[in-house]
């Protein structure tokens, strides 16, 4: 294993351009999991991002929230303004691992890892986040909702570094995040739902329901239509238009669909008069 330690973004992207098989490493909380057994990783070159001070911290710009790629869950939890403007970021951050992971794990790493069960990605996508990708070729900005093209496959090319995540400063009404894990803490989501009511309509994001985290356009359309929903079961077909959850070690496809429907139904009945 070799580790490169660039100190500027220019250096870092130059390295990635010269060695596209090199792997960026931020908190390492995904990359180091089961390390002793992932022998194939031991031969690789890693690009340690920890010295890229330019990627640290978050700032507000024209009302938008811009998180540098090294922003951790803990950084977000310490920021009260985020708690007011984007409360789902706090709610998700508090449920990621425990304090050790929250202080080391980064939002960009969560995006970069691309797990279909990533809690951070779900709430970022609900807030319509934009991913800033930088390479020697220039800067690309990709909406997170279009970022993933398949299981752990994204638009990021190997020479690109995620440099920032930007959340548009829009006022939201209802904001809901549900994480269903096999226990109350330190659990990987079996089902996650992040949804917000934006000026342009509902945004509904499902995690652990498909090979990627994704927007549920059919569910959004039903919610936007304002038609009453008679029961959780009435949502099953709509959900299945959006996602096709599988049986795996953590749960069953059937459970996932039914519980997602029940979460939507029960969580929204307080918010939408039409449901009662």
């Amino acid at each position, binding site marked *: 294993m070799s580790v490169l330690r660039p100190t500027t973004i220019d250096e870092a992207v130059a390295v990635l351009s010269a060695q596209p098989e090199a792997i960026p490493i931020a908190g390492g909380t995904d990359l180091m999991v089961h390390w002793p057994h992932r022998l194939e990783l*031991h031969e690789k070159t890693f690009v340690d991002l920890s010295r890229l001070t330019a990627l640290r911290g978050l700032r507000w710009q024209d009302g938008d929230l811009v998180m540098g790629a090294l922003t951790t869950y803990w950084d977000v939890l310490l920021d009260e303004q985020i708690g007011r403007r984007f409360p789902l970021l706090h709610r998700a951050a508090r449920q990621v691992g425990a304090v050790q992971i929250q202080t080391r794990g980064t939002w960009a790493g969560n995006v970069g890892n691309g797990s279909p069960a990533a809690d951070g990605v779900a709430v970022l996508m609900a807030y319509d986040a934009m991913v800033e990708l930088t390479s020697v070729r220039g800067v690309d900005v990709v909406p997170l909702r279009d970022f993933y093209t398949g299981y752990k496959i994204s638009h990021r090319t190997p020479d690109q570094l995620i440099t920032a995540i930007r959340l548009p400063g829009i006022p939201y009404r209802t904001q809901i995040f549900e994480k269903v894990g*096999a226990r109350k803490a330190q659990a990987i989501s079996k089902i996650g739902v992040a949804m917000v009511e934006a000026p342009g309509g509902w945004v509904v994001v499902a995690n652990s329901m498909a090979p990627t985290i994704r927007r549920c356009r059919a569910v959004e359309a039903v919610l936007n239509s304002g038609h009453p929903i008679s029961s959780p079961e009435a949502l099953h077909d709509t959900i299945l238009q959006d996602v096709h959850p599988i049986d795996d070690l*953590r749960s069953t496809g059937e*459970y996932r669909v039914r*519980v997602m429907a*029940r979460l939507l139904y029960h969580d929204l*009945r307080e918010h939408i008069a039409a449901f009662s």
Partner: protein
Amino acid sequence: MPLAPLLRREGLAKLSGREQYVDDLDIPGALHGITVRSTSARGTIRNIRFDPEIDWSSFVIVDHRDVPGLNTVKLIETDQPALAATEVRHIHEPVVLLAHPSRRALRKAVRAITIEVDPLPSVLDFTVRPTPEQIQHGSDNIYKQITITKGDARSILADAPIIVEGVYRTGAQEHVYLEPQGMIAEEVDGVIIIRGSMQCPYYVHTAVCHALGREADQVRIIQTPTGGAFGGKEEFPSGVAIHAALLALKAGRPVRLVYDRTEDLAATTKRHPSWTRHRTAVASDGQLLAQEITFLLDGGAYMTLSPVVLSRGMIHAAGPYHCEHISIDGRAVLSNTVPFGAFRGFGAPQSLFAVERHMDRIALRLGLDPVTVRQRNLLADGQTTATGQVVADGVDRQGLLNRALSLSDYAAKRETHRQFNIDTPDRRRGIGLTTFFHGAGFTGSGEVYLDSKVAVAGLPDGTIEVRTASTEMGQGTTTIFTQLASDRLGLPPEAVAIAQPDTAVVPNSGPTVASRTAMIVGRLVQEACDDLRRQLSLDATDRGNDVAEAIRAWHRTHPNGLLLGQGHYRPPPGIEWDEGTYRGEAYGAYGWAAYVAEVEVDLRTYGTTVLDFVAVQDVGTVLNTTLARGQVQGGVAQGIGWTLMEECQWEDGAMTNNQLTNYIIPTSSDIPPIRVAFQETPYPHGAEGAKGLGELPMDGPAPAIANAIAAATGAEAAVLPLTPERLMADLDR
């Protein structure tokens, strides 16, 4: 006089990270070892292929041909090979061992070895009768069959107007001790010395002597500080020790064989899965008229301890109730999965879950409160258990139940839940109850057979050393023995050392299992103290400095002498047990308990939260309140895990979720306040009146929680674990 309180003696070393576990020991020149395992559930080994890409000359390689003695892990039976020779019976069965200076090289090497197997039909469901091609043990794959008969249940059931039936199942459970299995072996001057994580040094000693063909004095087993065990380090370490020794002998150097978590989860023993059917004749007032019980255990691929797990499960299967007519039929059967083994409770949690869930079914059927059904049937002094043992210990069992009801506010909660469940669309609350018992010590004549011995040495400086084979594994042996010896001789705790269990030093006080340590071995520690005093010609009034001074004086007149007080087990009077008929005194003493759980079920997710837990028990005199409460709280937490989330997932008899990300144990956020209360009825033959405690708290949570879930939702709640997925299917019925 209660014993003076004492903090856990090894507590600070553990809290501060200074404790040295086996993997922390710095043994110069030690190689690492690793185990190459079967990837087939059953078959004949055709070939073992070593990938030529690897330079095998740098590895120490061991297979069955390197076993100098008998190629078995000796326990009740000798059916389990130390290393598979011609046939494998489960995935992860050890076949080849490797040693090398580098752990990484070993991990690579394991992947470069293929064990080629011609498959044979495997048994993957222990509840289905095997076909002839699947037979691997005796004529029927049954490791052990037991029947317990009291009265004539069959004829009562034949004429009974009300019969309540039910089938209950429980799943496997992993011990998840924090420290995985591990041993270091080396040969020094012709003696094989094995250090490692274990509960029972003399079990390991016997097994190693047997497999290595060595005399007792050529093998020395030393327990290292053990980071949890729960039964998982009762019999399993014997195999690890044999493996480490085989590698060390072939390497001519020390070898360290320490499992990592994924290997430990995949390859080690687990709690026996169970299947229980109850048919019960009841009177309309809830009185039990006849109980007919069938109890099946999945033994896995080798016998290990299954016969005795079955035995304990069956003795507890009828519950702590009086019934004149009981018939219990039980079998432990083979399947081609990793062998199941000892786990806290040892069969009783399984059978008690069934009977206690069934008691609530009976109550429901009769329209009675579950409390009433239990009050009507709880054993009273003078009545007999399923094996005909007369209960006469003076324990107020009705009082235990009442205390649990009042501490949990049972009656009022039932009312508030009724209203809550009407008012709340997406949540349901319920409260559940269980009354149960747990026999302490070995079953029947087991303690006589163990023939336990303890020594207390008086040292030249006037201090003493307690020498037993009973191990500290987090439960408090060291602290309790210190308290007992210090109290007995009036010496300060600092003047009492507890010898690290080492078969070259300590006598065999039996295995550290079956909730026997404080009660039985603790008593022997007291007797050894008395014997020491006798040897010093002191009488019982001589304490403290008089004792220390007498010890020093003895050594002045006996330079280099060995001053040993001895304790030797003698059974209490009136204990009679017939192994053939399963009649008699199954246990010298029972702990009794009443537990209450309050739950909330989220109807959106089918997830269960335990809101409150009350655990009331009589375990005789409590020797150390902090430790005792810790045992109960820990047992309840482990029980909550088994009940709600811990599930081994299987494919071809191998665990597929062998990582702690996917094998889910409870976190502190999943555990409610656990309110513990003791009623103390001294047991005259236990140390200071103590009875067994360690296993009892594992028995209660499952039925209490399942009964609470049933009360909340109307679920059957008959299959554990009650994961949200399973509860969803249950409520769909």
